[in-house]
C-alpha cells in the first residue's frame, strides 16, 4: 500500500498535495474496490474543510468525499468521467479528483506516518 510522504491525509482518506490537488488514498481505493463513477464538484465552488463535496462510487457502494481544506475548487479531473477506474490504478496520479485554491487546511490532517499507523 502506497502512502507518499509529501502528502497530507484526512481521517476520511482524502490526500492533499502542497499545490492543492486532492485525491483518495491507495488504502481507500483498495477498500472501495472497482470504481465505476465519480461525481465531482463544480469549478468555482467555495468549500469548507470537512464538507462533503464529491462522491466516488464503486460497484458496491457510494462513498462521500470530503474537502480536506477550505478554499475554492479551481480544477476537476475531467478524465474521470470517461475513466473512473483511474482512481484505482493511479490514486496519487491520473486518478486525482480536484484541485483547491486553499485558504485554510482542515485541522486534523495527518502526515504519511500517522495515516499509515491509523490504517495499519
Amino acid at each position, binding site marked *: 500500500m502506497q502512502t507518499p510522504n509529501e502528502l497530507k491525509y484526512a481521517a476520511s482518506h482524502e490526500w492533499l498535495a502542497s499545490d492543492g490537488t486532492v485525491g483518495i488514498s491507495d488504502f481507500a481505493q483498495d477498500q472501495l*474496490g*472497482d470504481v465505476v*463513477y465519480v*461525481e465531482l464538484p463544480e469549478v468555482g465552488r467555495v468549500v469548507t474543510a470537512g464538507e462533503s463535496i464529491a462522491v466516488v*462510487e464503486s*460497484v*458496491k457502494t457510494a462513498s462521500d468525499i470530503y474537502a480536506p481544506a477550505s478554499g475554492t475548487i479551481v480544477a476537476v479531473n475531467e478524465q474521470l468521467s470517461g475513466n473512473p477506474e483511474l482512481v484505482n490504478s493511479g490514486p496519487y496520479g491520473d486518478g486525482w479528483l480536484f484541485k483547491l485554491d486553499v485558504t485554510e487546511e482542515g485541522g486534523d490532517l495527518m502526515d504519511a506516518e500517522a495515516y499509515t499507523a491509523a490504517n495499519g
Partner: protein
Amino acid sequence: MVPFGGWDMPVQYAGVKAEHDAVRTRAGVFDVSHMGEFRVQGPDAEAFLQRVTTNDIGKLKPGRAQYNWLPNEAGGLVDDIYVYRVGAEEFLLVVNASNVAKDWAHLQAHAAGSDVQLTDESGRWGLLAVQGPEAAALLQPHLDVDLGAKKKNAYFPARLFGQDVWLARTGYTGEDGFEVFVDAEGAEALWEKLLTLGLTPAGLGARDTLRLEAGFPLYGHEFAEDLHPLASTYTWVVKDKEHVGRAGIQAQPPVKLIGLALERVPVREGYPVLLNGQPVGHVTSGTSSPTLGHPIAMALVQADAAHEGAYEVEVRGKAQPARRVELPFYKR
C-alpha cells in the same frame, strides 16, 4: 470482511469485477456456509411442507431441488428458500443466514401436531457454490458421478476429491454450476482443493452483482415480511393450494417490481423512483452491471405506474433518466 447474519463474510478477494467476470466467463467458487439448513423428516413431512410453502412440494421428486417461499399469515414472506428432496419422507431446506432463527421458530410453530421431525443442521454443513460455464467440466474429473446426467435442480450424493458430499445443480448467479454440501469440518480442505482447479474465489460483492444481473430477488431487499411477494417477477412460486399465506397472498399487490437501466450514475437501495417528476416508488437493489457496462436496478413502484417506459431516479437531489427493461437483465 463484513459481519453478515452472525458470520464474518468476505466482500471480495481480488475485486468484485474480476470475480464477477470469472463466474460469467469461466468459473468461480463462493463459500456460502453461512446459509442455514433444516432437515424435515417423517410421515407428515410432505404434507407439512405443502402447508408452510407456496410452491407445489408434491411435484418435487427425490433427487430434485425446488425454489420456494415461506409465507406468513398476512401474505408476506418469512423467507425464500430452496427445498431439496432426499426421499419420500425426507427433505433438506436451505434458508437465508439472516433468517435462520426466525424460520426455525416459524416452522416449529407450524409443525405442532404433525408427525414430522425438524433438525437444525446449520452447524453441520459447509456450503460451497461452484458457478460458471466451466463448472461442470472442472469438477467432473474429481467426481464419482456423471454430471452430464444431472440436469438443473438435480440433488445427489457424490464423492468429490474423495470427500463425501451432496451436490445440487443450483446456484444464485444465473450461470450453470453446483452447490456442494460438505461436512463443516471438511469444508476448508475442500475449498483449498477447489482452488487448485483454477476456480476464482468470489465474495459477497460478486454474489450480489451476479444475482442482480440475473434478476434474482434478495431477501431484505425485494422480499420482506411486510411486502407482498407477488410484486416480484416470481409469481410462479405461488401455486393454487392450501397454504399458510393463501388468504394474504390472494389480494392484488399495490406495488410491482420492475427493472431499470441507467446511463452512467449508479443508483442504490432506497433512492426514489419518479414518473413525470412525481415519486412512484424506490430502488430495492442497484449496482453498476459489470457484464452490461451500465448501471442497473430493481425497483418497487406503484402497480398503476409500473408499465411506463421511462422513469427517473433521484440521485443526491438530481433526477437521472432510467428506462424500464425486462428482468432478468442478463440471461445465459
